[in-house]
């Protein structure tokens, strides 16, 4: 038997928070966190989506133990859904679809590195089939990596060492190291080789 996934809930009000925790407590593969625990996955439940929601996702992801985030929100327009994914969320469910079983599954998937998105939302996120145009991310101006991060990753993928990258980009070696560190932390990657493979597979490079 694999270990249980420690999950926490953050909601706009305590009643909702208790309800969602209770719903997930029925899943034998999940353990509900008490306050102060370092959760593997945090479920964020909101009544409406705004900048505050994105800030909250980023704040949770920035914790030292890097929890994954599953967002339960009302229906989102595609651009906002992309922002949520770019902010690092690994699951996006609509309030009305978030049954206990589905939520538990999305949490387990997030802990395992998968991402859950409602199917029709996936459809809307992908550009129209026969129109080769800007990609979903490009067309909404949402980006996952900053310019500096992309430059450093690109040079890493081309086989340059820290010192050479620093010289090419006119940064200090310390800056280069810290950019790489930030990327590996944010996406939970083990090292540079992992980061480069991840970035290429994710279409970031």
């Amino acid at each position: 038997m694999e270990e249980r996934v420690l999950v926490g809930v953050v909601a706009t009000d305590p009643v909702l928070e208790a309800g969602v925790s209770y719903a997930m407590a029925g899943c034998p593969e999940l353990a509900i966190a008490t306050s102060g625990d370092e959760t593997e996955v945090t479920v964020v439940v909101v009544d409406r989506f705004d900048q505050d929601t994105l800030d909250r996702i980023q704040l949770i992801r920035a914790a030292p133990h890097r929890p994954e985030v599953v967002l339960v929100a009302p229906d989102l327009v595609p651009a906002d859904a992309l922002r949520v994914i770019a902010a690092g969320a690994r699951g996006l469910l609509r309030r009305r679809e978030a049954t206990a079983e589905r939520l538990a599954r999305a949490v387990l998937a997030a802990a395992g590195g998968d991402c859950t998105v409602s199917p029709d939302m996936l459809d809307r996120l992908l550009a129209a089939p026969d129109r080769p145009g800007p990609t979903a991310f490009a067309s909404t101006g949402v980006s996952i990596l900053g310019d500096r991060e992309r430059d450093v990753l690109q040079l890493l993928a081309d086989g340059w060492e820290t010192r050479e990258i620093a010289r090419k980009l006119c940064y200090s070696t310390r800056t280069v190291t810290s950019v790489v560190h930030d990327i590996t932390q944010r996406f939970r990657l083990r090292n540079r080789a992992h980061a480069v493979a991840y970035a290429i597979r994710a279409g970031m490079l």
Partner: protein
Amino acid sequence: MSTLRVHVIAADEVRRSAVLTALRRAGVELAAEPLGSSDTVTAVAADTLDEAMLACPPRLRSDGHPLLFVADRFVPADVVHALRSGVRTMIRAADATPSRLVAALHSARDGDGQLPHEALLGALSGGAPTPVATARTVPAPSLTARQMRVLELMAEGQDNATIARTLRCSEHTVKNVIYDLMVRLGVRNRAHAVACGVRAGLI
């Protein structure tokens, strides 16, 4: 919760038995026919998603029948192709432990979209047709099966000691394999080797 039944289609016998073993361990009921009942999910196992697509009878794709693709490699363009063809649930073969396989099968049955995070990002970034497609037209340097396996583990961020444990060989052997594959790919370091392997569609 209703009983889940699974019909397995695989590109080869090794993959079939891997999926069947995981399903047996999880105690999942197998179905001989793909269209037995509404609770029957068809799991298709192959090397890439495009191969899974070929292995999957078109009638299963056209009528919204629940499908789960289990693949070793997720090429971004294939992810987009699969999503547009109505496949919503995909899992990496390496991640398909009994419990995760069962969770993914339930997602497929309920029509949830679930796929590896970087595969989703790749699809949303436009299926990255540039690096992979162009690299494929240039003949990729060929690697031995062992070199490919080591390169794959390097791309997962494993260090030499872990790779040695996984492949049940010495660290010294791992170092030699890495040295040889780096020479063959003409690359400068590990990150470069991995980038080259992913872009050439080797891993």
